[in-house]
């Protein structure tokens, strides 16, 4: 991780965007939840999306792999580009989702399968890997997540922190170009959340491109390369964490940060 600002900016500018979202808009009924959101995430960097609840952070993230269908906008993940105005083919959708791994607030592991099967089934069904190959990769990932002997357990026998790490392993097993995290620690108590953040930090240091919707300001400050502040469905401010978090330009950002730090 680059240590000084100039170096950081240079790195960011030199790398091609791994995620590029532009003009993302979405309306639920009469309520516009996303107002032309645009976002660039350079390859190998970490972007933290912060902001008050109801700002549209999660919706924006969920639009990136089209779990949520935006009304308009262009989404690029790696080499896959989808322009909503031109329609979304099943094949494009599958390709886009294959290149983006997603981690949910509530883990969403498959409760009727063992931890190992949770990680092997997607590899077999989506990538067509053999069971042996998939299991070898799953064991490797579980070890990396600090869960080497959890494979034969069912998810409900694992703690929340363990389940979330399994969920990260499940997503990583498909070899995504980008990892999307939707408030990955919000359902965990702080101590357990720390285990998960540790794993995410490691992932970042290995050069994984990550977009993280989070309320963890410490994580945003220490791990992210870019902080994006959203409020009322729009991006109100973005930049390097030390700038945005310590010298916010926007009054709304300052108010939000003040409220978070006062808590």
């Amino acid at each position, binding site marked *: 991780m680059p240590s000084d600002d100039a170096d950081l900016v240079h790195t960011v500018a030199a790398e091609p965007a791994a995620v590029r979202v532009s003009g993302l808009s979405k309306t639920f009924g009469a309520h516009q939840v996303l107002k032309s959101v645009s976002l660039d995430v350079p390859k190998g960097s970490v972007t933290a999306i912060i902001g008050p609840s109801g700002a549209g952070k999660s919706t924006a993230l969920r639009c990136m792999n089209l779990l949520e269908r935006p009304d308009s906008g262009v989404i690029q993940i790696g080499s896959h580009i989808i322009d909503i105005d031109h329609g979304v083919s099943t094949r494009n959708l599958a390709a886009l*989702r294959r290149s983006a791994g997603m981690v*949910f607030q509530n883990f*969403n592991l*498959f409760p009727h399968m063992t931890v190992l099967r949770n990680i092997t089934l*997607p590899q077999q*069904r989506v990538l067509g890997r053999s069971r042996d190959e998939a299991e070898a990769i799953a064991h490797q990932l579980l070890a990396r997540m600090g869960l080497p002997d959890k494979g034969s357990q069912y998810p*409900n026998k694992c703690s929340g922190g363990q389940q979330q790490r399994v969920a990260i392993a499940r997503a990583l097993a498909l070899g995504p170009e980008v990892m999307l995290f939707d408030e990955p620690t919000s359902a965990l108590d702080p101590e357990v959340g720390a285990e998960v953040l540790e794993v995410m930090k490691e992932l970042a240091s290995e050069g994984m491109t990550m977009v993280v919707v989070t309320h963890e300001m410490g994580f945003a400050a220490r791990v992210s390369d870019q902080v994006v502040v959203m409020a009322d469905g729009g991006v109100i401010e973005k930049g390097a964490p030390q700038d945005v978090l310590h010298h916010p330009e926007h009054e709304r950002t300052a108010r939000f940060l003040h409220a978070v730090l006062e808590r």
Partner: protein
Amino acid sequence: MIRTILAGLPLTLLITATAMALGTLLAVPLTLGLRAGAPPVRWVCRVVVDLFRGVPQLVWLFIIYYGVSAGDARPTALGAGVAALGLVASGYLAEIFRGALKGVAAGQWEAAAALGFSPATTWARILTPQAARVALPAYTNYAIALLKDSAIVSTIGVAEMVFRTGQVARTSDMGVFVYVFTAVIYIALSAPLGMLSRRSDIKLREAVAR
């Protein structure tokens, strides 16, 4: 006497099993229809389910047995019985399946979609197995009810257990006692089914508890 009554047992079991199978088979498309995106499909399936469930089995039985014909061909008593019981079963089972699918957390669909599972894979590997576990107790419960309800086909002369019990009651001097004997057979059939259902329910609950 025991022999005569027990001779009706295979038919009782056959009617129960085939009506349950028919009901399940019809319930699957009805369940999908109840969840369909297109409102007209949902409405039609809703009407069909309510129609199947809302009319007594006995009335369906008479309508099908006496009312349905194709040229000179009329349904056999056994066929009409299975059809009537199967139709009503499909209405109830569709509701059971719909409720069970609703019980599968929305996050499961999302996780499957985000991983890039095809809809077919999502149904086969994620939704159906979880819904089946949720539906199992209610499903077995319906099977037990159907086992007993199959007796109504005796009204159109199908010689299952209750029909034969009636014959024995009329021709022997044992009176109501023959019915007690038949009651014991029904209990002997349904009690293990119920026990099996409760057992597997506890086991499955452990496996899918959230």
